[in-house]
């Protein structure tokens, strides 16, 4: 049953990927027809003088990956807004504010975990394509993230087969907080006028998480599964002001 569910998840993911690919290709085909009519593609040329100014603009984005994670079989759903300032087209101080929640029950052990809480991350990106005139960005960066949250843990009764007893396990409102750092590598490209899309790989490492004797949190809002260090990804739709 579990295997069948996994396979159906993979198939649905493959179909989604193919659909997205074909949509992307058809969009490019339309542009090809337009080019045959000798209409010159619009190129955004950024004034070299403007590029030397400190303030180059503001990006506001939303993460689509965290919202779509649950659909593809993930244990959590997360939404976040990013605010990024372009300084000299090279340095991008960034603030990420979001809300993460998990309501998960393991199929094998039937252990349930619930949490929902806001989180925040601050950091900086460095754009390696600061000299390029096209509006695409290739960057490395870092983040410091933190969250304060409470979580619920429950399990079916724990059976002691030797002494023939049963122990209940259900805890609500366990308090915790977590701090972490992340290293980020990503791209961001202009897709239409002021709209950009981009993605970033994140290597996240926990600095500290408050444990409880009843058990550590399974999922940390803004960080992900409580594994010490983990790889993550973000997929963003961004608007430039």
């Amino acid at each position, binding site marked *: 049953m579990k295997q069948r569910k996994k396979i159906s998840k993979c198939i649905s*993911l493959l179909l989604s990927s193919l659909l997205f690919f074909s949509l992307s290709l058809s969009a490019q085909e339309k542009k090809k027809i337009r080019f045959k009519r000798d209409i010159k593609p619009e190129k955004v040329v950024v004034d070299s003088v403007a590029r030397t100014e400190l303030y180059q603009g503001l990006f506001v984005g939303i993460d689509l*990956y965290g919202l779509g994670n649950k659909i593809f079989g993930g244990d959590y759903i997360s939404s976040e807004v990013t605010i990024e300032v372009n300084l000299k087209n090279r340095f991008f101080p960034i603030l990420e504010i979001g809300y993460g929640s998990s309501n998960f029950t393991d*199929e094998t052990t039937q252990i349930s975990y619930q949490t929902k809480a806001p989180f925040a991350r601050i950091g900086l990106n460095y754009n390696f394509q600061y000299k390029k005139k096209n509006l695409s960005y290739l960057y490395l960066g870092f983040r410091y993230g933190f969250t304060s949250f409470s979580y619920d843990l429950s*399990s079916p009764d*724990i059976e002691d087969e030797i*002494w023939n007893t049963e122990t209940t396990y259900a805890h609500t409102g366990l308090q915790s907080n977590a701090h972490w750092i992340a290293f980020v590598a990503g791209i961001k490209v202009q897709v239409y006028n002021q709209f950009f899309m981009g*993605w970033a790989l994140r290597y996240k490492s926990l600095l500290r998480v408050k444990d409880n*004797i009843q058990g550590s949190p399974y999922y940390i809002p803004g960080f992900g599964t409580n594994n010490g260090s983990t790889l993550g990804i973000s997929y963003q739709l961004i608007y430039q002001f």
Partner: protein
Amino acid sequence: MMHLQKKYGYLLLPLLFLLLTSCEEENGSSNVRSLVRFNFISSTIKEQVSLFDSLTVTAEETQDTLIYKASSINHISLPLPYEEQQVTYMLSYSAQVRDTVWLTYTNAAHFISMQQGISMYYTIKTVEHTKHLIDSIVTQNPAINETEKENFQMYFTTTE
């Protein structure tokens, strides 16, 4: 045109990541039982030694035999009750000779992981014993959890 294809191609790379991570198999298992470990130490040479021709360990309030006629062993790892805060073990070396060990402890059920489940964690408060073959018991680590480690050194008088 090539530039556009390259640009949008880059945007599709995360789907590959999503595909790889979502198709991972998970290995399930049931709850893990924490065990208290006693290492056997020779009082003469102060080293861990293998002992006994036939050691059977039982506990009060259960019909189960925890260890049955073990021979040449250098340690024993024993379960503790989930619901009580004390346990009595009987170590039978033969039909006539046996020692009794009493432990008192605090306990709390602890969530380890979704796959490994819940394990009872214990903290030993006191240990007492009879002295037929046991010389003494020294506490090395009073915390008992799913990671098995030496909790006690159980000293026996041995001849070289």
